């Protein structure tokens, strides 16, 4: 009778597990890889320590005036001092409650829709919220003599508030129009198809900055004297026209990615063109397009900074404007770094949301 001594499993070689293994596999797996890794490390060494030093370690946090900030680093109280400018622009401070209330209402709406998830009448509630919301937002921010809310002209709007308004209006208005254009481009009616193609190709061939200039400088020339509509409104129209063409192309990609069998099955069932598109094709096409739609919206969000060239003060323009304060000369970098961080956080949230949406709709294919 022989006795077998069970061998204990040996642990994997240290070069294949843990931190060291990860490093070996990902950063130093070949000569080129090693060289690139070392080079990147060197670049990081050049950039990160001075940046951290400027932002945090040597920075002044508590000094209350520019002159007290003597160290050669960031003076963050500046941001604190200018916070309301960054957030609301020149919006009168006694009316700050209005944008704040709007944020509260928005969050409540979102939460309400979430909570109603399993209710039968959820769609009706959501739809009516969508219809009511723009009016609420408009009357709150702009005001109305009729409702007794003091009117705040749009030249006083600015900062993050304006950035969000421009981006949100651009996104919400361009989406449905983009869908119609995408459908138009596939239409069997030649006039509609050609008009759609002409519009899309024309707009896509023009930089946004040109469209904004056209909307704000050229457009008034076409109207008789005295008719002058709001500068912000003109910029909003320009941005919507621009974004529409891009959304249309993104959605067209989605429409083309829906398998032909789906079109045929809908046809064979006797559905009309509208029914086919609305019930069968669009839901699938939009699902496929989510990443690109969100990508396009992120691009739009960044593009909103261009409204500064037509004299509207978005958040970035405010960073510029704030430097004119004689008490805070030479603090432009702080402002721009702050704006960059805020915008990054917002855009990062958008792209995370896109991931969630994709997962939620990922039931098929």
């Amino acid at each position, binding site marked *: 009778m022989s006795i077998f001594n069970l061998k204990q499993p040996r642990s994997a070689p240290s070069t294949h597990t843990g931190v060291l293994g990860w490093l070996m596999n990902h950063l130093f797996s070949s000569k080129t890889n090693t060289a690139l890794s070392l080079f990147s490390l060197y670049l990081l060494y050049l950039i990160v320590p001075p940046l951290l030093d400027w932002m945090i370690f040597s920075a002044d946090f508590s000094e209350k005036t520019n002159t007290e900030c003597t160290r050669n680093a960031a003076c963050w109280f500046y941001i604190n001092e200018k916070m309301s400018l960054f957030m609301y622009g020149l919006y009168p401070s006694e009316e700050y409650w209005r944008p704040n209330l709007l944020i509260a209402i928005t969050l409540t709406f979102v939460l309400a829709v979430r909570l109603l998830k399993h209710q039968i009448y959820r769609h009706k509630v959501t739809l009516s919220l969508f219809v009511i919301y723009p009016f609420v937002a408009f009357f709150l921010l702009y005001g109305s003599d009729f409702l007794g809310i003091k009117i705040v002209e749009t030249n006083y709007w600015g900062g993050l508030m304006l950035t969000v308004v421009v981006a949100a209006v651009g996104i919400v208005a361009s989406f449905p129009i983009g869908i119609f254009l995408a459908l138009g481009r596939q239409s069997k009616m030649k006039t509609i198809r050609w008009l759609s193609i002409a519009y899309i190709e024309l707009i896509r061939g023009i930089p946004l900055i040109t469209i904004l200039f056209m909307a704000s400088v050229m457009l008034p020339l076409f109207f008789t004297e005295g008719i002058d509509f709001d500068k912000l409104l003109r910029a909003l129209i320009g941005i919507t026209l621009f974004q529409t063409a891009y959304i249309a192309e993104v959605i067209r990609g989605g429409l083309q990615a829906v*398998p032909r*069998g*789906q079109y*045929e*099955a*809908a*046809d*064979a*069932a*006797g*559905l*009309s063109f509208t*029914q086919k598109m609305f*019930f*069968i094709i669009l*839901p*699938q096409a939009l*699902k496929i397009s989510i990443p690109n739609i969100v990508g396009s919206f992120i691009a739009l969000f960044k593009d909103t900074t261009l409204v500064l060239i037509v004299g509207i003060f978005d958040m970035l323009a405010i960073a510029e404007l704030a430097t004119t304060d004689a008490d805070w000369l030479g603090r432009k970098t702080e402002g721009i770094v702050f704006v960059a961080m805020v915008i990054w956080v917002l855009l990062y949230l958008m792209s995370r949301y896109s991931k969630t949406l994709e997962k939620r*709709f990922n*039931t*098929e*294919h």
Partner: protein
Amino acid sequence: MKDNIITIKGVNKWYGGFHALNEINLEVKEGEIIVVCGPSGSGKSTLIRCINFLEKFQEGSIIVDGIELSDDIKKIRQIRSEVSMVFQHFNLFPHLSIIDNLTLAPIWVHNKSKQEAREKALQLLDRVGIRDQADKHPNQLSGGQQQRVAIARALCTSPKIMLFDEPTSALDPEMIAEVLNVMIGLAKEGMTMICVTHEMGFAKRVADRVIFMDEGQIIEENQPNAFFNKPESERLQLFLDQILSK
């Protein structure tokens, strides 16, 4: 003698320079079961897809239940509401639940109430043996189950004619029987059916006529018995040898 429910006269179709359908003449009577077979590319799918106008043809005429096919979208939709189709790749709507797949056309094309459509849908699902799956999505079902759902969906609009476009070709072998059984059940109830299929057992069992197509033409047309036992043309003989020796 029953009337013709489908009359196909002198139909020709070209894809560019390729003659896909060549002078097709076919009459189908109410309640008849027709099986169409032939090598791939012979135009059999194209032929049945012309009947509900998924494919256009350039010459000839097709009359379905007294309505002549033309470019008139109203007439096309009228015919499509009487003719249902089952596809090779099922073509269920993946974003809708099974029950919504079934009730969509009855509600929106045939103006049935939700309640009515739902009852009928459940009844049909029961009949194809998957009533318990009604609230699932198509991708949660097996191929055979999906094709049975597709058949139930096609039946939901109470069609006069059913077209089957190779309904078992995309299925795993063990799932073919469950789909064929549903089709046999339908045939026995007197549904008018045109089936493009290579299931010769099915053809022998229920077909009234079997049609052999090659290169866009109808080569031979006969009762199943004669069709399989005494093929007249050489090409059919060759085809049968290949397909039956499989």
